[in-house]
């Protein structure tokens, strides 16, 4: 019997989910095969219970005691300590929430493997936040460490890189008060540096980008221990400059600030100006820095540095009313002068080290690739010769909560 067109349409319209393509048995077999394949083809079986992990929060790399060895120190979370310190409210010294373990071996990876001899838990590096190199190791070369911490699947690229002035392992033993773990203290310390803009914040990723560019000198903030009320505490101080994976010198805090102004990383900073009348504090609330290469008339490439900052009057020790236009104008000029001094100091130091920490070479490569090809090979000599043009502009847009200074009978 032939189906009429209408009947056919109706049949199409009320299609149900019955598929006749596979018989029940074949379908069952295919499902079984597919399920088996899912389990056998999906490679890693990586189930790990939380209480079998040693969560690493910070790693310190030092030169080992024996020649040609490296000492890896890892700070791991001690979950039991966390519980104790959160439940026992005050009274008695709470158990530490972390534990530092170290192993020395020929290479970093073999030392990591060595941890299995001393800890029953699997070292878990996904939450590693801080990577500290001892300055001794940094001077010998950190290529191995950077490669290991980049290549591994578990470690992340946003790990903060630091260089300690002394042994890196000691930093992890700092006596902290507010945080439960030194690793958190250090990483949060770095995250707060935007308030003063005197420390470069460098992650593994930033470091690698600088290394891979060829012309740029990687940098890393430096950390040191100091004694405060007979307690060892860590503080950030200056910046280490690297070249060919070796630490070759340092930038002071002022020079680091100069670097941050140019590289557009400075956020807030308080500038204190000494005048004949007294001290004046200006706060820079926002700044925009840029490196702009330009072509000279003779065909050579020059560098123009521009810093555009906004700020505010924050403190006034003098008895002057600084809210007048002329005074604001004068203050802006003084602030510009201060920023200019920072930048010049940092350029001087960088050229003394012959290390392009600013990325001048990169900016030339981007804007004038042909010219860069010519100077690329002896960039070190070229960099030392560069005399950048400086353009600093500061715009003060308020005088804080009050206009006139607070002085006797001033009202």
């Amino acid at each position: 019997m032939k189906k009429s067109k209408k009947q056919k349409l109706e049949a199409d319209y009320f299609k149900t989910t019955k598929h006749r393509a596979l018989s029940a048995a074949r379908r069952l077999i295919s499902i079984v095969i597919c399920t088996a394949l899912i389990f056998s083809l999906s490679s890693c079986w990586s189930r790990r219970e939380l209480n079998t992990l040693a969560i690493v929060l910070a790693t310190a790399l030092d030169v080992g005691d024996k020649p040609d060895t490296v000492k890896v120190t890892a700070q791991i979370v001690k979950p039991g300590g966390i519980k104790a310190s959160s439940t026992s409210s005050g009274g008695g010294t709470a158990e530490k929430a972390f534990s530092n373990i170290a192993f020395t071996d020929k290479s970093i990876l073999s030392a990591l493997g060595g941890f299995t001899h001393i800890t029953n838990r699997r070292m878990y590096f996904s939450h590693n936040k801080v990577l500290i190199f001892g300055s001794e190791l940094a001077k010998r070369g950190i290529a191995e460490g950077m490669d290991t911490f980049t290549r591994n699947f578990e470690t992340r690229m946003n790990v903060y890189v630091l260089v300690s002035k002394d042994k890196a392992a000691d930093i992890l033993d700092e006596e902290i008060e507010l945080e439960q773990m030194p690793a958190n203290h250090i990483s949060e310390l770095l995250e707060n540096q935007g308030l003063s803009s005197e420390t470069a914040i460098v992650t593994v990723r930033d470091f690698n980008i600088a290394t891979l560019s060829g012309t740029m000198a990687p940098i890393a903030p430096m950390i040191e221990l100091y004694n405060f009320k007979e307690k060892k505490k860590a503080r950030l101080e200056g910046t280490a400059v690297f070249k060919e994976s070796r630490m070759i010198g340092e930038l002071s805090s002022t020079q680091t600030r100069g670097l941050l102004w140019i590289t557009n990383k400075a956020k807030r900073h308080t500038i204190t100006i000494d005048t004949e009348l007294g001290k004046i504090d200006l706060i820079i609330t926002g700044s925009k820095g840029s490196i702009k290469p330009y072509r000279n008339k003779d065909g050579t490439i020059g560098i123009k540095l521009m810093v555009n900052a906004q700020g505010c009057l924050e403190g006034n020790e003098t008895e002057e009313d600084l809210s007048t236009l002329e005074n604001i104008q004068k203050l802006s000029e003084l602030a510009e002068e201060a920023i200019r001094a920072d930048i010049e100091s940092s350029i001087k130091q960088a050229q003394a080290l012959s290390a392009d920490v600013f990325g001048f070479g990169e900016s030339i490569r981007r804007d004038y690739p042909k010219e860069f090809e010519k100077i690329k090979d002896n960039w070190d000599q070229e960099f030392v010769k560069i005399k950048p043009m400086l353009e600093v502009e500061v715009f003060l847009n308020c005088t804080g909560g009050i206009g006139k200074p607070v002085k006797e009978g001033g009202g």
Partner: protein
Amino acid sequence: MRALEKLLSQTKKKITKSVVSSEAEEINPEKLSRCLSENLNALVKVFGDNCDFVSREFNFGRDGQYKGAIMFFDGLTNLKIINDNVIKPLMYDSRFVRSDDTGALESLEELRDKLVSVGDLKTVESISGAIDACLSGNAVLLVDGFQKALDISAKGWDKRAISEPDTETVVRGPREGFIENLRTNTALVRRKLRSPQLKIRSIKIGDRTNTQVNIIYIDGIVNPELIAEIERRLKNIDTDAILSAGNIEQFIEDSPSSVFQTIRYSEKPDTIVGKMLEGRAAIIIDGTPFVLSLPMLFVENFQSSEDYAVRTSYATTMRILRFIAFFISLFGPALYVALATYHQELIPTSLLITMAASSESLPFPAALETFLMMLSFEILKEAGVRMPRPIGQAISIVGALVMGEAAVSAGLVGAPIVIVIAITAVASFAIPFASDAVSLLKWVLLVLAATMGSFGITLGALAIVIHLASLRSFGTEYLAPFAPFQTSDLKDTLTRVPLWKMRTRPRALKPRDSKRQNFKIPYKPAEANDSGEEDRS
């Protein structure tokens, strides 16, 4: 030969169609006899064993020359109607016929037309018809000398009052709900839809229960092919009993093996009318307060009748919230297990440390822990449903204490898993409909997550999506309007646009008349009004 075949098929029909037992068949079940006592005997043979069967013989007419009998089931009928409107006019009033009237009864229709004052009257000519009438709650009047009987509608059994349904409570919007009585239910719908285009068709299903099932739809909106399909599927049902809406649902749904329901039910007339106005048909089943509406789309799992009674912004937020709740209740435990055992790198450090601290001394792996907690919650839930209300409270207190507090402080399970299970449980109650499917699928996802981590969850999610996309409900794609994508139908899915913007009915339902209303922005004070005021001032 042919005659023999015809005879055979006829007898077959008799067996399937009539409820008459084989004894009754001996005395020609089809035709009523002219003799009252013969008819009475036939009926008493069928119903005689029943103590609630009433058969009342009486004489009537001017001289009492006619013999009659009325038969009905006590309890199914309204005795007042039978007494006042049938027996009284016959026995009492018929004596006062004028003397010039011979008082001779020429036909049974004369009784119907002149004496019996009941609204719904029919004549039946067969014994099986009389039996049917009695069983459906009518009274049957037999008169000696006529080969017919009167089927007098005197239904009057006790029924529940119309009340607010427990399953779909609303804050705004009508509160009345369907009850177990079919006619009351159809009346509730008709009261909301005073349109001649509202059609109600009746089918009897169930060889034993003879349940009345009504298909109800709006002629002119609904796709006629849909009605034909529903009728076809209903007529195909060959069962002896239909006791609830769920029974019908299982007989006519497209994918009986799916965990997702493809036929929606509701206890509220306003919901059903709303569905009918969108181009759906409804099935009302006698004896159950749940009315089926079909075809059903996946998004209907997230729609509640309240959505249309509250403000658009709020309704839309609630819709999105329900979708989120759906995903939480489906993936919550699985995601927790996957994160805690495979992908610790995805957990924020401080949270991970807290979790590590709480799982420090736990005896079970995270997957087993989750499994046990889910199991105990499901048992608690089931116990809560089955328990009588006063005991139920005790159960919930013990359950909450044992699960929430004692298990954690005894160090059997971690605190995070209790939170995850609690959120999952609460979320699963926030979805109006799909919670059955969700509570099954979350087990599957848990197993996948425990064995393969997020890879397993992805596989599970894919399988669910593929399954949903393959489902059909009476010719409509279940995932419509997402797949196949239909922009104009999106107005009532993740969002609920203002009612005045719902210009067309959902196209996925293929309504005959897709236009719902004209597009009109609700009244706004026009600018002309403002200028007018200025003029006055």
